[in-house]
């Protein structure tokens, strides 16, 4: 653990969720067109993903970008790796590569892990199953 609890919480959320999207707003109520398109692409593929709203605290975005070396939101991580932002996800979606990247094409998938510890405020990861 570093001396930065928020960064640790973000890293933990990335580690604990096979597919996790950091976005502005929520999949139901996205607050930015780029976040809206990215979460819509995931939802259309019927993939379970954790969604983290970065808006409640500006430090979430700061720490996330420091950790990922990626300046913009949204950011999609799969199995701990940054897949990309809105442009890359759109490219993967249009080329048909996204399901493979997300691992949803794989047969007999292992059930996803539960969401991050809700006690790790102000970072809240909402687990979206099904």
């Amino acid at each position, binding site marked *: 653990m570093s001396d930065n609890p928020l960064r640790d919480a973000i890293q933990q959320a990335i580690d604990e969720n096979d597919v996790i999207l950091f976005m502005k707003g929520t999949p139901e109520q996205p607050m930015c067109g780029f976040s809206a398109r990215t979460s819509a692409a995931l939802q259309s593929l019927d993939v379970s993903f954790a969604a983290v709203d970065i808006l409640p605290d500006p430090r979430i975005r700061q720490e996330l970008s420091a950790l990922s070396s990626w*300046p913009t939101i949204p950011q999609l991580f799969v199995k701990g790796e940054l897949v990309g932002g*809105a*442009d890359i996800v759109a490219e993967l979606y249009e080329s048909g590569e996204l399901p493979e990247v997300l691992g949803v094409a794989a047969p007999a998938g292992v059930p996803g892990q539960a969401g991050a510890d809700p006690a790790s405020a102000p970072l809240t990861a909402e687990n979206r199953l099904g």
Partner: protein
Amino acid sequence: VHFSAHVAAPAFAGLSRVQQHRMVYDIFTGELGSAIHALSLKTEAT
């Protein structure tokens, strides 16, 4: 402010999309997310 750019460069060869986009983002350090709200990128190796 939103910008959109299509960047093609030999330097992208062999790099992942994420690495290619990072190279472009690095040029705008500190401006992306503040002065520039978003930069839509399409990168391509030449």
